[in-house]
């Protein structure tokens, strides 16, 4: 670094000296030019002035005057010689050093004597090499050339180191050095902040460099510029890196923002109420579902105490209780209702704890899940199990009791005995049907139902179904009208399951038709379909019940229906069996007028004549 600085100083000194030399040379040239110009003016003037006089003046009385005047000029104004020639070129007057004439080249004199106008010639004296400017002008009298005046001026030699010039140069050198010192000091001062900036730049890309002005290198401007260039390169690299990082961060921010929106949207679209609190139990988030449930605006709940927002003593007590028990590991829940806000609906309120990165609890998450349908289904299931138990145990009780009477010989009347045996048989059949229905519905639900398909003669199916229900129908004095076609189409299916399906329809018709009623059971063929129709004059089905009669466990609330035993499985099972056979079932009904069930099943191309 020092070598560079020394070289710079030497270079500056050389430049300074060259500058001084050029300046001195310029001064000399300028002075020479000025002198030459001065001589030119003076020569022109003097020669013209002298040439104005008649030639005789230089030979007559005035000769001395001219001699004296010109002699003064020679001594003080650089005039070396003065020759005045007559018309023939003979010298009339010669004021010159004694040896000068012989040193003037002949062609110079000749040209001066024969030219009719003012001439100015520069030449070097022979032998001495002095540079002389000669001015010559002819003297005219009455239009005739009467003579020639020649004046020779010596071009003075100019010394570089004249006292005046040395003084001037010394002053100038002083001012130049002072200026240089001043400029140097100024530049140093000006560079100082630049160096600091450079150092700061460096500290930006070299993290280990301490940010201190003490270590700022005191280099020259080249070094500073070089450093600055390096700094700029490094800064560009740093900028590129930062820009790349910025792009990366922007992308990450975008991803985070997207994910945040996603989480928010999930919370918003979730079909539960979600309420989040901070560590002070103030609400920090509540999704739209929860806001709708509580009928509140977001601004009314955020940062408000949980207890105030909920206004639900049961849930508040639950939260406090859970907190007291410190059950932070597992979520716990209660069932709660909001009679004024959501009448008839049941919510499962779950509490879990919101944890930070280090596992510390930073709030609570309370979710509100509407479990009304689950509770309804649970209740329906419970009712179903109760019903089924009742339905199973009732025929068992009958069989058991009747059997007990028979075994105890308490029934000695033959007719009564027959009635008892029939009842036991009927109840056994009832029990069997119920168990089969349960098994079938269970298999259908599990998707494990296997159809034992074969050719089914529709008239046999028809007769089997009638036989099953006609005993009950007779007891109720219900007439069953049979409508049969001339030819009986065949079916391809599971005969036992098809019997279950049709008997469920027929059995319901008998069950829900009052005494002395009428049932029409029709078998027909329509295109490629075998159609069974059951039309009864029973209680009919209400408009409210009609869309649900094929739902599992569904039972009408009509007292005429509820007073009959039933599991709510029959029609659901029928619908599934018909569906499994590629058929369809439809029903039309009017309350108090009766119902009309139609079962359509694909037929097989196999006919039997009417038996």
């Amino acid at each position: 670094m020092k070598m560079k600085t020394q070289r710079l100083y030497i270079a500056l000194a050389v430049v300074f000296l060259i500058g001084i030399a050029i300046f001195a040379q310029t001064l000399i040239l300028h002075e020479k030019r000025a002198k030459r110009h001065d001589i030119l003016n003076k020569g022109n003037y003097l020669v013209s002035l002298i040439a104005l006089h008649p030639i005789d003046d230089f030979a007559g009385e005035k000769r001395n005057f001219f001699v004296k005047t010109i002699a003064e000029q020679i001594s003080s104004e650089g005039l070396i010689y003065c020759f005045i020639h007559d018309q023939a070129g003979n010298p009339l007057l010669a004021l010159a050093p004694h040896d000068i004439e012989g040193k003037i080249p002949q062609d110079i004199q000749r040209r001066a004597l024969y030219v009719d106008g003012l001439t100015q010639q520069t030449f070097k004296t022979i032998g001495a090499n002095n540079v002389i400017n000669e001015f010559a002008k002819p003297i005219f009298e009455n239009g005739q050339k009467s003579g020639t005046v020649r004046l020779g001026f010596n071009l003075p030699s100019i010394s570089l180191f004249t006292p005046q010039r040395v003084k001037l140069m010394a002053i100038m050198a002083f001012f130049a050095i002072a200026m240089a010192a001043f400029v140097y000091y100024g530049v140093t001062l000006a560079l100082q902040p630049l160096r600091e900036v450079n150092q700061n730049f460096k500290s930006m890309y070299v993290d280990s460099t301490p940010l201190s002005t003490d270590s700022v290198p005191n280099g020259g401007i080249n070094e500073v510029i070089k450093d600055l260039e390096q700094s700029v390169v490094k800064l560009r690299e740093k900028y590129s890196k930062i820009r790349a990082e910025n792009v990366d961060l922007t992308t990450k921010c975008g991803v985070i923002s997207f994910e945040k929106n996603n989480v928010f949207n999930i919370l918003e679209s979730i079909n539960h109420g979600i309420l989040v609190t901070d560590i002070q139990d103030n609400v920090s988030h509540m999704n739209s579902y929860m806001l709708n449930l509580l009928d509140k605006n977001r601004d009314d709940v955020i940062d408000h105490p949980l207890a105030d927002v909920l206004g639900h003593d049961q849930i508040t007590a639950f939260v406090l209780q859970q907190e007291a028990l410190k059950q932070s590991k597992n979520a716990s829940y209660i069932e709660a209702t909001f009679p004024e806000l959501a009448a008839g609906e049941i919510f499962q309120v779950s509490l879990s704890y919101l944890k930070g990165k280090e596992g510390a609890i930073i709030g609570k998450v309370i979710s509100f899940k509407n479990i009304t349908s689950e509770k309804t289904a649970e209740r329906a299931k419970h009712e179903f199990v109760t019903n089924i138990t009742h339905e199973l145990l009732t025929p068992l009780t009958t069989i058991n009791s009747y059997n007990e009477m028979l075994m105890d010989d308490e029934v000695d009347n033959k007719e009564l005995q027959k009635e008892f045996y029939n009842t036991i048989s009927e109840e056994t059949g009832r029990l069997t049907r119920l168990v089969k229905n349960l098994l079938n519905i269970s298999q259908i639900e599990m998707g494990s139902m296997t159809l034992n398909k074969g050719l089914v003669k529709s008239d046999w199916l028809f007769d089997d179904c009638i036989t099953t229900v006609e005993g009950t129908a007779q007891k109720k004095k219900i007439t069953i009208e049979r409508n049969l076609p001339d030819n009986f189409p065949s079916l391809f299916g599971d005969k036992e399951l098809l019997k279950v399906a049709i008997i469920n329809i027929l059995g319901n018709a008998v069950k829900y038709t009052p005494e002395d009623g009428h049932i029409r059971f029709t078998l027909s063929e329509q295109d490629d379909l075998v159609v069974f129709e059951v039309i009864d004059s029973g209680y009919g089905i209400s408009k409210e019940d009609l869309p649900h009669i094929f739902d599992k466990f569904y039972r009408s609330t009509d007292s005429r229906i509820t007073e009959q035993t039933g599991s709510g499985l029959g029609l659901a099972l029928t619908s599934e069996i018909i569906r499994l056979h590629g058929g369809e079932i439809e029903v039309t009904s009017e309350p108090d007028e009766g119902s009309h069930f139609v079962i359509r099943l694909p037929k097989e191309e196999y006919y039997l004549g009417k038996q």
Partner: protein
Amino acid sequence: MENNKRVLVIDDEVHIRRVIELKFKNQGYHVTTATNGEEGLDLIKTQKPDVVITDIMMPKLDGKTLCERANEFKKEWPFLTIVMTCRISPTEQEWIGKLEDTVFIEKPFSLSSILKCIDQYFGK
């Protein structure tokens, strides 16, 4: 065999009504039957039976409501209520404990067990 006790059988199941009726008539009881809870409650008021045998699941008025209402009459005259049920759960035990002279009999029961229950009540 003559017995002055009056028995009311309430059940929507005809076969159960029928077999209990026959059994108790053979034992000399005066037996009346009803097909639903509403009809049964009317007969309790009018006939003031000594024994009421009732099912739980019945149309119009279920057995539990019937028992609760019948319990009010027991201040006027005491009678035994036998409730035929499928399952005696702790909830039902708790419920029946609040009623006067009311007992459960679980299905499927034997007719002799009902008779035994009645005999115990009347201190035979």
